[in-house]
């Protein structure tokens, strides 16, 4: 159950589970809950690129960081430079993921707290009479946006600096790797023509 695999395996499992459950409806619900939590935790680990592919694969945006995870392909004859590039990209991806997931979660949490406190101050509950969720309009939210931006200013400054450095480094190494590959291809062609 832990690693939800694609295809027919997933199809068979619920059949087996439900036919044997009998009166265990409660168990079904609990299993469903843990399934969903597992699904939410690590989307990257569930996907496996096909074996014959020799390219990187990019996935859908992460629900917390909105960044798309990349699964890096490791070629058999990976040069040290290529390895360094891949590790740099992997590390940058994780660093970015952590920053933005944290940023977005903090934003949403603080936004909810702000809305809750404002609603309380106004004497309103979380729901209106008709049962809808109570909302604050854009102008009331503007105070929160301003406060959040100024609170996170320094954090963004250091992130920006690091991001620019990393982005330049990755692109520079990509250039070096591309040149190295071209050079190797030329040398191989030369060897072939000479032999």
């Amino acid at each position, binding site marked *: 159950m832990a690693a939800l695999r694609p295809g027919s395996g997933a199809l068979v499992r619920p059949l087996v589970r439900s036919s044997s459950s009998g009166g265990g409806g409660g168990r079904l619900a609990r299993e*469903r809950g843990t*399934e969903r939590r597992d699904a939410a935790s690590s989307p990257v680990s569930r*996907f496996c690129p096909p074996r014959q592919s020799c390219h990187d694969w990019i996935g*859908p945006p992460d629900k917390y960081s909105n960044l798309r995870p990349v699964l890096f392909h490791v070629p058999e004859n990976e040069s040290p430079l290529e390895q360094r590039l891949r590790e740099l990209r992997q590390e940058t991806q994780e660093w970015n993921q952590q920053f*933005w997931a944290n940023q977005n979660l903090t934003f949403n949490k603080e*936004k909810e707290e702000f809305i809750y406190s404002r609603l309380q101050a106004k004497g309103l509950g979380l729901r209106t009479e008709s049962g809808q969720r109570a909302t*604050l309009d*854009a102008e009331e*939210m503007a105070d929160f946006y301003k406060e959040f*931006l100024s609170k996170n200013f320094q954090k963004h400054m250091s992130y920006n600096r690091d991001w620019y450095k990393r982005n330049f480094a990755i692109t520079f190494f990509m250039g070096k790797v591309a040149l190295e590959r071209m050079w190797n291809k030329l040398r191989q062609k030369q060897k072939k023509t000479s032999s």
Partner: protein
Amino acid sequence: MAASPHTLSSRLLTGSVGGCIWYLERRAIQGLPHRVAHLFRNVNNQWVMAQHLSFLKRMYVTQLHRGLSQQVKPKPEPSASPFLEHMSSGQARAEVDELPSFSVPSLPLSRKPDEELMELEAASIVERPLDMAKETKEEKQWKEMKLHADDLPSILARLSKIKLTALVVSTTSAGFALAPGPFDWPCFLLTSLGTGLASCAANSINQFFEVPFDSNMNRTKNRPLVRGQISPLLAVCFATCCAVPGVALLTWGVNPLTGALGIFNIFLYTCCYTPLKRISIANTWVGAVVGAIPPVMGWTAATGSLDAGALLLGGILYSWQFPHFNALSWGLREDYSRGGYCMMSVTHPALCRRVALRHCLALIALSTAAPVLDITTWAFPIISLPINLYISYLGFRFYVDADRRSSRKLFFCSLWHLPLLLLLMLTCKQRPDQEGDKGEAPS
């Protein structure tokens, strides 16, 4: 603002329809033999699932058009909605067609007429195929990072923000056409091409710098670098391959002044405006200069000198940027705040609206200055007064009301105001033989 009415009504509908089905099922099971009841349940469960999916699809559509109401818990169905948010509507339709095939094999379940079990089974039948669908859906969303040659033109078009580039080139053309002197076609074409290439280069570098920020904003999350359709190295190479010929064309094909302005503008946009967006609200003023330079380039390409007419035209474009951008940024405050962008609309909202209004009024003044500098006849300030007054009125409404509605009206007005203003300028262009006829509009 209340929650989107569509979301609520569709939820109620599904809820009540679902309730009806289960009630009917219970009655039916009690009255009919098991086999028929099983078939009945089969059909109804498929229908429940289809209903559920079409509700989710509607929710996706309404989330796109959702107003700015801030709810305590914005996503009522967190497990389903992130999955749907990133689907195109075409894919959503495909999902609805595919899933009934999943439901059929999972339906031969225990035939106990136990009520609770039936409800749970019905619910789990709806949700488990959705979980499975979500898995396979997520897998389908993984794309190989392989560049296909036939995708390249569209990817590069989006990387270079081709529509914005076209707008920039048209303002350059307007500057060229408004400049005094005979209209030189080869020079005009070289100027347009060179400016277009320079703009492509600047836009590509901008996207190269902003990948993680673009990922987090709704407006920009489908850009090529964000989606991994092109590597950063390729984006930089493309930018270089546009910038070098573009600036060379302007410098040697047109004149060095235009070339210098071109390269200065690329620098201003990529190295000043783009990083400044995250540091200070001064970025808006820098961005306005970036927008003002292309028509100046058009003028200098035609005349070879930076005279008062060029500066006036630049001034008109400069002033236009403020109502345009400030109105646009009013609706993006949440994204800017979360993404760490320093924009007036977030940090200094009153200033934002004041500046927008101020520059709407400046447009009237600048339009009046045009005949004074012999760029146009006196007909121009008169016939442009209605549209200038209209945009100033919308700017005033935005200043006073400070809400999303007035900001949207101002933004959309700015989109047609500029092309129309430039067109009117062109029709009222001061021609050498018509200097004496001040009141007449030229044919």
